[in-house]
């Protein structure tokens, strides 16, 4: 169904993290950009749509007023496209950073944890899980289970922390969103559904109890939630009722990332077991999922996977310790 295409080489290798690949398609600029975390830097690579020109950039995660010299390990990087603006959001062991979409300028820094605290437990509080909601909100999950909601203006650096959503008792793994909805998952496998209220606040309107296995990656498509789990399963839930619709014994190891093609409801899942697998969602009273395609990328523990086209006719993956973005295109 898919064939392997020429890889795109990064400046340095991908770290072992979940969701370690983000893609930004910019039709007006005529370019595709990819970002992959390598330790404390983010490799950003942009290519024109015909592939003729390729540019590289490394975004370094540095604290603006760094007392300590060493740079913290980056946990996640993700482009968030709001209706008026696209920003590159980074989370690390120390805080949350936002950059202009090309990674050129830092526009916001939010420290997490308190390095001066005497209790080592309070010293770090990493961020993980990034999603955009509504017209101007960017949500970021944290280790202590809070979800910070930032108000991002159409221009400039006047970004404000609007509220912090409390509910999760465990570290957040991933966030995803749909129209006026935010979905969050944590290390116990709990999933919370939050709805955007007319007054602009987010309210929890549903939840799924986990069974102790982290839900590392989440997608939402037409009110169907799909989660990728540490035990190799995918689980499909109805977002309206929070009821389980299907479980898939999908992978032999940890599922590190999943993605959805918005036009067709195709799902991509990648795992440490070297496999990238493609699935098809079906809407209905009881949502369904079907197996479509499977490909092993030899000797690579896959850490990131994204569709590169809205219909799911192509996708790319990254693997731990490897500096290629590997592409697959539909025949």
């Amino acid at each position: 169904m898919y064939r392997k295409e020429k890889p795109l080489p990064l400046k340095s290798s991908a770290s072992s993290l979940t969701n370690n690949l983000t893609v930004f398609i910019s039709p007006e600029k005529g370019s595709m950009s990819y970002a992959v975390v390598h330790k404390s830097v983010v490799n950003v690579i942009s290519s024109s749509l015909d592939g003729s020109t390729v540019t590289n950039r490394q975004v370094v995660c540095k604290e603006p007023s760094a007392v300590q010299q060493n740079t913290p390990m980056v946990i996640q990087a993700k482009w968030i496209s709001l209706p008026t603006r696209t920003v590159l959001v980074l989370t690390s062991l120390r805080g949350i950073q936002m950059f202009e979409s090309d990674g050129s300028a830092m526009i916001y820094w939010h420290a997490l944890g308190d390095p001066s605290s005497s209790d080592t437990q309070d010293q770090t509080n990493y961020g993980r899980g990034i999603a955009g909601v509504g017209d101007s909100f960017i949500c970021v999950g944290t280790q202590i289970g809070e979800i910070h909601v930032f108000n991002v203006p159409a221009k400039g650096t006047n970004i404000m922390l609007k509220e912090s959503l409390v509910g999760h008792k465990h570290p957040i793994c991933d966030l995803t969103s749909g129209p006026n909805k935010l979905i969050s998952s944590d290390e116990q496998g709990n999933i919370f559904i939050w709805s955007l209220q007319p007054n602009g606040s987010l309210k929890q309107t549903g939840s799924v109890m986990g069974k102790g296995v982290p839900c590392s990656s989440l997608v939402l498509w037409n009110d169907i939630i799909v989660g990728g789990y540490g035990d190799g399963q995918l689980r499909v839930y109805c977002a309206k009722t929070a009821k389980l619709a299907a479980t898939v014994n999908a992978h032999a190891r940890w599922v590190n990332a999943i993605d959805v093609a918005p036009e067709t409801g195709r799902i991509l899942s990648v795992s440490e077991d070297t496999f990238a697998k493609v699935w098809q969602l079906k809407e209905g009273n009881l949502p369904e999922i079907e197996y479509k395609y499977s490909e092993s990328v030899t000797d690579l523990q896959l850490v990131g996977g994204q569709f590169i086209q809205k219909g799911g006719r192509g996708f790319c993956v990254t693997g731990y310790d490897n500096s290629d973005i590997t592409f697959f295109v539909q025949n």
Partner: protein
Amino acid sequence: MIYILDQRLRAQNIADEKAKKVLHDIIATMFHKRFMDELFKPQPLYSKKAMRTVFDRLAHASIMRLNAASMDKLYDLMTMAFKYQVSMCLKPRDIILVTLNHLDAMRNFVGDAAEIRQQLDHVYRLLMESFASLSMGEYQLIRQTLLNFFQDMHIRVSIFLKDKVQNSNGRFVLPTSGSLPHGTETPGLIRYYNENGNEIKTIQFTPGGSYQGSQGEGSFDMKGSRVTKLGTNMYSVSRTIETTGSTRTTTSSDIESSTPDPLAKAQLDLLSQLIGSKTASNKSEIRLNLFKTDKEEEQAEAALMKPIELAESKVVKIDASKKQKNDELSRIMGELAVNEGSSNDNDDLLDLMDKA
């Protein structure tokens, strides 16, 4: 490290009593109570340089001496072996089982030496207190941090190449068969549920790969079955030790390694004190060679000097920037300085780190 030293001591026909003394001294220093108590305090990850310095010191905690080439080789072998163990864990919790396999083996090495056994029991208790009851997500974050520490190290190890678990490019072979992690169901089945949560149908598919069920959950008990073989002694059958074509690649992006953190320094200081008191009187040193023959070791030692020229010409070709060239030079000089210094017992460990 202990597995490798044990194999080399036997291969070099060192008298049993002497070999035993060497291993006991190193294990006793490695697991010294004060050092372990410090090590188990929550702290940021060591820089690569600090880590190497710790093991340089530990390797010289007995009457045994290693020259720079042999020390390099020892460190390459042990780091690649540990990277392999962490990489191949079926699930993140297995990293604790790997460590328990190490501890079990140490217990066998020390036999009835009561004092060292007590130290090992203390480490076991610390390990259980700190790590026995973590969640799956916490184990995963630790494993990811370890994997990122070993990222971009691709040294080829002959025993791995022979066993076909490593490719000639230094990457580990990841099988798409074998045992599943405990708690993971065999890929290939979809279950559908209705609104009441009842299973209404199942569909099978051919997922690629062919796996067998789990071998069970490894035990954290003092004397339990660990299930996993990762972390056990690969060299128990007399097998030779080699890094072939030892391509030592250092990455340019390691910003972290430039500044050793104060905590690591404090612990090195402590370790230095502990060792200092032990190695005051060295009369009959053993020189251990990690290579097959002395000649090979000499060649490797000579080759250690060569990369300076090689690296220089290479850097000029790729990038004419002077700064990089100097960095590369001072890096190599720095490495040599560490090795030179570590054979001198009076050297202060912190001095070594500054030189490096």
